[in-house]
């Protein structure tokens, strides 16, 4: 206290005419953030809290549900449905890898080689979004129908014998097998891979390629040492945008799969809507969220692109 009284008199406040612009500047960022934060609060934070609460409740529809901190639901859900979890991760990872293998060359082509066709190809990539997700998935049932041209061709080439031996397909059909589900996932999420890849490839200065060439780098070396490292942000965001929704997807498994291809999304759907076991469904959602978060964190750490996502 003594120090306060002895402190030298505070300098007079700055002239008032300088103040208004500063004050406005101080609050603008918060005001701009307000709608977004409110949105997140209402549509993300509150539902998450509500689900967290549901997952530790017990009861029934008639008697109502009460929070009893019954954490065993998590363990029961996990021990009961771990195969579906493993399958979800496996299918989503396969689809992501396939998307990357298919999407990278296409994005590369659009960014560097397409010339005046660039816009047209971009439109073709986005065009499927003009129809509904369901219709697009159902279309695959026609494409892959038993006795259809695709399946006949694959049978004639004995490709399906190999995939059946690997356990990807069953008998001489493609539909209602794991392969069909992974194909469906790959198809549906491919644009989510191509767009970020394209954006990061397009940003690469072509002069860097010329420079690499001048320094006697072979095309393959240029790709390995220059292009690919510079496109990493696109690769990372593309894989995340593909993997995360794919692991929670249940439509593809529902329409293109069979009883042995059910993913965790199917379990959550049936728990919520058919069995009406809300706690188990909520617990499953949380386990899925945690699993994805863990996998993604690990992935970002490994790929060393923390600041790019």
């Amino acid at each position, binding site marked *: 206290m003594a120090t306060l009284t002895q402190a030298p008199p505070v300098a007079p406040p700055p002239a008032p005419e300088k103040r208004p612009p500063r004050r406005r500047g101080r609050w603008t960022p918060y005001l701009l953030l307000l709608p977004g934060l409110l949105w997140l609060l209402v549509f993300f*934070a509150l539902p998450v809290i509500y689900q967290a609460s549901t997952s530790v409740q017990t009861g029934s529809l008639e008697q109502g*549900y009460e*929070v009893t901190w019954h954490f065993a639901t998590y363990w029961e859900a996990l021990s009961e449905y771990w195969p579906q979890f493993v399958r979800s991760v496996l299918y989503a990872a396969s689809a992501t890898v396939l998307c990357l293998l298919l999407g990278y060359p296409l994005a590369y082509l659009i960014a560097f080689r397409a010339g005046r066709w660039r816009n047209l190809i971009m439109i073709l990539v986005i065009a499927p979004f003009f129809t509904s997700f369901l219709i697009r998935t159902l279309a695959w049932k026609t494409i892959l129908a038993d006795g259809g041209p695709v399946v006949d061709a694959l049978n004639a080439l004995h490709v399906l014998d190999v995939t059946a031996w690997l356990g990807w397909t069953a008998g001489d059909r493609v539909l209602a097998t794991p392969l069909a589900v992974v194909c469906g996932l790959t198809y549906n999420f491919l644009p989510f891979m191509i767009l970020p890849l394209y954006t990061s490839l397009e940003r690469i200065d072509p002069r860097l390629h010329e420079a690499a060439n001048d320094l006697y780098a072979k095309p393959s070396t240029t790709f390995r040492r220059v292009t690919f490292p510079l496109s990493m942000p696109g690769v990372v965001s593309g894989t995340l945008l593909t993997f995360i929704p794919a692991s929670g997807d249940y439509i593809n498994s529902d329409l293109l799969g*069979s009883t042995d291809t059910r993913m965790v999304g199917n379990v959550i759907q049936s728990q919520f809507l058919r069995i009406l076991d809300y706690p188990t469904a909520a617990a499953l959602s949380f386990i899925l969220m945690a699993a994805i978060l863990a996998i993604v964190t690990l992935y970002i750490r490994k790929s060393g692109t923390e600041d790019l996502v």
Partner: protein
Amino acid sequence: MEQYEPDRLSPAQEAAVRRSFRNGRAALTRRSLLRASTGGALAVGGLGALSACGIPAAGNTQGGVPAEDHSKEEKSVSFSNWTEYMDVDETGRQHPTLEAFTERTGIEVKYTEDINDNTEFFGKIKPQLAAGQDTGRDVIVLTDWLAARLIRLGWVQKLDPANLPNAFANLSPQFRSPDWDPGRAYSYPWQGIATVIAYNKKALDGIEVKTLSDLLDNPKLKGRVGLLTEMRDTMGLTLLDMGKEPEKFTADDFDAALARLQRAVDKGQVRRFTGNDYTADITKGDFAACVAWAGDVVQLKADNPDIDFLIPDSGYMMSSDNLLVPNKARHKTNAERLIDYYFEPRAAAELAAYINFVCPVEGVKDELAKIDEDAANNPLILPDKAMQAKSRAFRSLSSKEETEFEEKFAKLTGA
């Protein structure tokens, strides 16, 4: 004595530091925002909040909760139905039977097709009904098991027989007394849904199919058989096939039927469990035979002559979609008049001619023959005596059984 304070900042410096936290670069990093928002979320959703959001008991009212009936002063009734479950004229915008009703009674019908799925619709109206509020709907159409649940929960109103003379007189005997609503105190059927076996002649290629056992056992049909994800339909046919009665089976019977299906699934006999999307599979021939709904089969058969249906000797499952008046509906009398109207042979025939489900009204045949001779003779629309005799219903389940059976059945289907 003055206290020693190390590195004391001058007031000006202190102010500068404070300002920089609010205004400078440090003020708004993503990280600090993340930290702030997590902190906020934790504060909002602290443990207290977690325990506060339990779900209240769904209901305990018996006999439903009426609201003040505004039928007299407000000449309207709002009717929520499934999509494509009503006759339409050539323009595709008018519903002739509803127009005729309005013309005669002066009651305007607000017709909405907002039901796509029983479970989904239940989720939609649950909050209002649980809270004892008006859903804004006077008539809703729900399948047996959900209608049973709503009656059990006390969420629908008892109907006044005085307003339902036609419905009482003309209701077809096989729909008169379901065990979940004896004597139809709360509900009247809109349309009946027969679950039968459909097959694709081309895909079967001479393989003979007569019963569900043929579908589940014939190795020539491996991977080309479809079953429905509707537990009651698939399990009902299986129970019948095993000589059990779906009206009074026990938990052991259920388990035995489930094990029978599980064996077929494990053998790879069953290609998939489907909802309505089986129609695509059977048309393309991906399914050689499947469990199917009669209303779809009538339509599929008209489009593709290879598709046909069979009724197993053991019988077929019959369920219905039912008209119900939810609690607090504002126009109960108008709703009852609308329900009664659809039990007049003329209106019922017009509807049956258009939507091809099983008509729950007696004495429709002559009226229907005037509109469509084929439909009048189709046992899937107007079941004859022999057909009616084979019709069976799934018994109602307690909520505990429902959860248990649905869970076991979901495991069978993979989820």
